[in-house]
């Protein structure tokens, strides 16, 4: 459903992605693992059209995303939770959700479903997003992306700085989305955070995908984890 074919991305003259490639099947959860500065965020931004792609292509459901204006990408059904959440912090919870709902003119049913996934938000609709706790803000960032009714969800370190209970909640919602056929790319730094839910793991190093493997394989091979992430 998504095929990233050997893309090159630059920030000015600095090359951030080299021949970066990735393939996803519908309904799978793929995790991008890599050290700080490896290029994980840049890869997600490239898919969203937020950084220019100089070479290569990104095909989503038969459409080459690199040929579209960047605001057209989410309209195809790609939801994005940026690193650091990037909520519209001056706006209310309700308005943040409205922005997500506007993207594809999602109806009341989508809003309803999202609020069922994160009931806390339903009680806080009038609160300014910036005044919520870190965990609540992360839920709102997820909820805002889900308001697109996405087929593909891009999550950039959604559990950063959260308590174990909150991490569990976010994980549960990712798995629940999978049962609805949503495909997910999940960026994480810590391998233990994703092993329980991911189907496959792609290791990113210096702007390249250096290895892709199924979680079952990986779990049997601790050396891979040590080699690529340096975490036991």
């Amino acid at each position, binding site marked *: 459903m998504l095929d990233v074919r050997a893309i090159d991305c630059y920030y000015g003259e600095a090359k951030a992605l080299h021949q970066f490639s990735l393939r996803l099947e519908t309904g799978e959860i793929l995790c991008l693992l890599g050290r700080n500065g490896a290029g994980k965020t840049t890869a997600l931004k490239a898919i969203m059209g937020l950084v220019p792609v100089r070479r290569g292509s990104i095909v989503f459901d038969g459409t080459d995303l690199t040929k579209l204006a960047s605001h057209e990408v989410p309209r195809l059904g790609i939801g994005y939770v*940026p690193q650091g959440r990037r909520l519209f912090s001056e706006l209310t919870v309700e308005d943040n959700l409205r922005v997500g709902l506007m993207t594809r003119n999602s109806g009341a049913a989508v809003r309803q479903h999202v609020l069922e996934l994160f009931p806390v938000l339903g009680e806080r609709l009038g609160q300014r997003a910036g005044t919520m706790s870190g965990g609540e803000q992360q839920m709102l960032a997820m909820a805002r992306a889900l308001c697109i009714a996405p087929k593909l969800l891009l999550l950039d370190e959604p559990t950063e700085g959260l308590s174990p209970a909150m991490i569990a909640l976010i994980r549960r919602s990712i798995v629940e989305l999978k049962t609805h056929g949503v495909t997910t790319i999940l960026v994480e730094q810590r391998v233990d955070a994703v092993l329980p839910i991911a189907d496959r793991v792609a290791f990113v190093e210096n702007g390249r995908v250096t290895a892709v493997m199924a979680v079952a394989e990986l779990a049997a091979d601790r050396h891979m984890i040590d080699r690529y992430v340096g975490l036991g």
Partner: protein
Amino acid sequence: MSFFPHLLLAVLEGAVAAATLALTALGLSLVFGVMRVVNVAHGEFYMLGAMVAWWLSQLVPAHPLLGFLLALIGAPLAVGAVAFATERLVLRRIGYDPEATIVATIGLMFLIQQLALSVFGADAKPVNAPFTYRIVFPWFGYSGYKLFVVAASAVLLLCVWWVMSRTRFGLIMRVTQFDRETATAFGIPVGRVYSAVFVAGAAIVAIAAVLLVPIQQAHYLMGLDPLLMSFIVVIIGGLGSLKGSVIAALAIGLLGGIVSVFFSPTFAAIIATLLVAFILVIRPQGFFGAPAR
């Protein structure tokens, strides 16, 4: 005259001054707020609006009301078209870079001024008010049109406030203002929003010119004053805050009106300038602006 009539006159003059300030600053504040660029040609958009109003009014010299209504439609359309062209041909090409925009719009300011000079000439052009009703107080008479301007600017401010806070397009503008990258990631065509906001800012200042030209006069250099006053209002109110701009316009206008009636207009101008200098020192982000991050 005794104290009370003086005070009444001062408040009336102050209200007119406040309305004038708010009207001229509104467009600049909107554009700066959403796009984070300063349009130095803002005053020239005002002047163009006044020139169009004059040109339309002298087509129907016997019917000032008709001329006024024509100008209310024609001036925002004409000035909006100039702004649209500016946005497409200049701002978009320089990527809305804040410094490049200042330089480019300074150039545009002189260009529009010189064009206006060669097309309309250097003499001041009076425009009749659409009606000449005078409100008669026991102590003095006062222009009914000036009070109409006060009411009209209140209506225009309410409209802009309503659009910003209550409509879908208002939400889109606010979201674009806060974070254009994330706005794009949610399907908002930031380029088109910028274009619309720039044109709307120009159309608003053109309407301001149509309303105000009967109590001023159309002249090719008339844009400098509103530009300066708009800067003052936007700086004091806090860069990017519409609410701040409106409150600053009210405060400066009323204060200025009262000081000019009881003392002198020059003194009022000195006070406004000192106030700006003072605020820039103690609170550089203005009263309602967010501190620089």
